[in-house]
């Protein structure tokens, strides 16, 4: 160790008038203090360049200073440590080394006269170095300003829709619209002479449906289930039912203490109830609409790929649905054919061909602009172009990608294996079916506090089939399985609470809120 005379050094500093960090007075050691480090008295060893085996007292970062930085006087600022005291908490190896160092130091000190230590005089930085650093700083300062300006103009996350859905407003069928307009004009003109039903429709580009009329809602107890038949008769008389039979029957085995709910106006009849089947509580909903535009699909933000997820009740409220139900929760998985607003958004060609096809393909349910269900079987191969052609030819509005198909063309379609939905386990299930033209039926089976037993997909399919459906398709089940009626879940949801989802299907009234002409 080098030794210095403290007074001499202090005089040097005073002459140079250099402000630097000197140890506080109490940190400057007396002779007595330095010879007894083990007693816990402070000593200064700040000017000692750390040796390789002297790591305990060396600043770790000083040890890493590169050669040119090490010469920089600023980097060699003093660090004042108080002498270590052996304590119980001290590391074992450290204790051993510290003790040996202390012994060695004591021997040295006996032989030599202890002297005060000093720090090295800081060197002044050369002008060239300063200039270099200054220029570099200046250049990067200008670059930084440029980067900030670019950021100001370009980085504004989520201020607008991330991916605008390409709502295809241009595909309106002009002839059909003209027919509708003429029909309604005729109905208005001849209202005193003859009853001509008006035709209402929801424009395809509308993201929000008209709000249902409060007067259209009703509720009856299971004992008064026959009252619902009066409502059905009204719908029949108005021509809404188009002569079709209904699934609802006042003699069903209704769940006690739950009311049968309904909504009726000129464009939609909805009946929703809970019944007991095989000891399980099953929620059923029958819907007949006047126009295919009343059967709709809603993705959060109206944008395919939106990362946001909301409760089905929130989504349903945002579109004024009469009744809404879960769909396929498309954002939860990466497979399936997703069509929305007539556009093909998800179709991974490689998952529909080759050895992995079996594991990644689902049956797909397409809904046409006529409100009909079309199925695409999961082992059918296609290229994206073929799929686009299929969508265009069949006027597909949207798709649901979960499955499997439960009933097709009036025939039950059992399923042995399927990549989604844990089909062989007793599980909460949901499915939608088509009974007739613009006539739909939704069923969900959830567990409840009292009834835990649930169905496999094939059992669920049989129960759907028994309702006389022409087409039926399985939707996402489990906690996703939910039907929303008047702003709240109507069925019991697994685990007792809603789960955020990325999409719903819903039925809406087509009668404008103003009550004006369609």
């Amino acid at each position: 160790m080098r030794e210095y005379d403290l007074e001499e050094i202090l005089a040097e500093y005073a002459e140079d008038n250099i402000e630097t960090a000197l140890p506080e007075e109490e940190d400057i050691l007396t002779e007595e203090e330095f010879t007894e480090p083990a007693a816990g008295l402070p000593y200064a060893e700040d000017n000692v360049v750390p040796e390789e085996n002297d790591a305990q007292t060396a600043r770790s970062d000083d040890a890493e200073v590169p050669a040119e930085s090490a010469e920089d006087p600023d980097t060699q600022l003093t660090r004042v440590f108080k002498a270590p005291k052996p304590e119980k908490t001290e590391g074992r190896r450290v204790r051993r080394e510290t003790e040996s160092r202390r012994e060695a130091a004591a021997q040295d000190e006996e032989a030599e006269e202890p002297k005060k230590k000093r720090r090295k005089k800081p060197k002044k930085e050369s002008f060239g170095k300063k200039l270099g650093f200054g220029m570099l700083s200046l250049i990067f300062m200008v670059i930084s300003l440029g980067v900030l300006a670019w950021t100001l103009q370009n980085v504004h996350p989520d201020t607008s829709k991330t991916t605008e859905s390409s709502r295809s407003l241009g595909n309106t069928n002009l002839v059909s619209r003209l027919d509708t307009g003429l029909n309604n004009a005729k109905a208005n003109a001849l209202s005193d002479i003859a009853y001509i039903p008006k035709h209402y429709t929801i424009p395809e580009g509308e993201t929000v449906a008209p709000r249902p009329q409060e007067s259209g809602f009703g509720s009856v107890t299971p004992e008064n289930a026959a009252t619902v038949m009066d409502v059905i008769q009204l719908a029949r008389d108005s021509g809404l039912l188009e002569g079709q039979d209904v699934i609802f029957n006042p003699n069903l085995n209704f769940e006690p203490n739950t009311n049968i709910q309904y909504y009726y106006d000129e464009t939609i009849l909805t009946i929703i109830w809970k019944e007991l089947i095989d000891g399980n509580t099953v929620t059923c909903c029958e819907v007949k609409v006047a126009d295919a535009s009343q059967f709709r699909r809603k993705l959060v933000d109206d944008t395919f790929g939106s990362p946001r997820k909301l409760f089905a009740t929130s989504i349903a409220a945002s579109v004024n649905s009469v009744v809404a139900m879960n769909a396929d929760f498309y954002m939860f998985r990466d497979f399936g054919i997703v069509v929305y607003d007539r556009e093909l958004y998800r179709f991974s060609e490689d998952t529909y061909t080759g050895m992995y096809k079996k594991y990644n393909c689902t049956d797909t349910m397409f809904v046409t602009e006529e409100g009909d269900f079309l199925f695409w079987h999961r082992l059918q191969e296609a290229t994206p172009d073929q799929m686009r052609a299929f969508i265009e030819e069949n006027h597909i509005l949207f798709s649901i990608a979960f499955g499997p198909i439960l009933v097709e063309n009036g025939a039950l379609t059992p399923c042995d294996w399927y990549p989604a939905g844990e089909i062989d386990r007793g599980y909460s299930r949901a499915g939608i079916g088509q009974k007739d033209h613009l006539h739909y039926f939704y069923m969900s089976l959830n567990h409840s506090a009292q009834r835990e037993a649930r169905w496999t997909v094939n059992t669920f399919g049989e129960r759907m089939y028994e309702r006389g459906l022409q087409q039926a398709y399985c939707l996402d089940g489990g906690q996703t399985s939910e039907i929303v009626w008047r702003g709240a879940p109507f069925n019991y949801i697994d685990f007792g609470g809603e789960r955020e989802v990325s999409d719903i299907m819903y039925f809406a009234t087509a009668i404008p809120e103003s009550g004006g002409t369609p």
Partner: protein
Amino acid sequence: MNEIAVFTGSLTIYWSAIIICLGIAAGLCLTLALYPMDHRHNTAVWVWFPIATVLSVLLARLIHWYSHIEQYGSLLEAMTDYSTGGYCVQGIILGAVFAALLVKLIRLTPTAGELLSAAAPGLALCLALIRLSSLFNTNCRGRIVITDKVYQQLPFAISWTDAAGNVEYRLATFFLEFLALLVITVILCGFFFRHRSEPLWDGWRNEGNVMWLFLILLGVVEFIADSTRYDSALMHFFLIKRLNPYASFISITQIFTAVCFLLYFIRYMRISVKTNGWSWYHFLAMLVFLACFVGAGYFGEYKVQRTAQYVRCYLWQGGSLLLLYLTVRLIYRTCVAKEYDYEDGE
């Protein structure tokens, strides 16, 4: 409030962009103030800053693209058009770290850790303001609907009007995160002044310890905040996608937090074991670490989704993370040569 602050001709500047730039500038100023305290040249900061900013934007977008592939037409589109789309804050941290390594590579700073330690409080401040900027876009809404009128105001909730005109109040996730990050900034500043050069036993290097602390504190805040968000960035496993198409389930933020905690834990556990030897508390710490992390994930990801019992689940999650934090910090303390009553020599 209108999202646009300035609109003239082809120039459109959003309020959120202004707040973000203010955050970046504030972070830079703080770093410039702290870095010279060890008598270093600020040149390193000036070089680091633009590189870090550019890398942060690139990486934040890359991670966002990865977790929201279907929002973008292609990778090229995602990486060339920054006027739409989102960003993941983890990219900002990675960008700052990579930039510091580059600055170290050109020998403008003795160690990347030293630069990052000085930058950590600035990064926290910058992130705080980035989160605040979400008040001016569509993002600051959590998944939790606030129905109690008392809490239907900032800092608890923010209103949202849906397409049908219904008003709903949701947890102001990002605003709360902004407040938490401000607190972290203050903590890091204090830590920087008092402990940035804390010596470790046996001369182990302790560079970047402020940055390490920042990472785990940020991890705690992000872990909880991410669980309350309705648009978490989820992990996709490309390699096993064909066999497991359901993999988009685990949040990237949670993985980021796990990695930060794990690296911190491994780093200081190793030092602790080498200096003190294996001891009972090392095994206990490992057990507690594992239990706490599983607990935090279980309550914040699974249980809250299943039961929607927010208060209970987030209390459990917060408790687990606090215990996790204390565990790793205790391990850190066993590495610090605390008998050396270090005083800043300036």
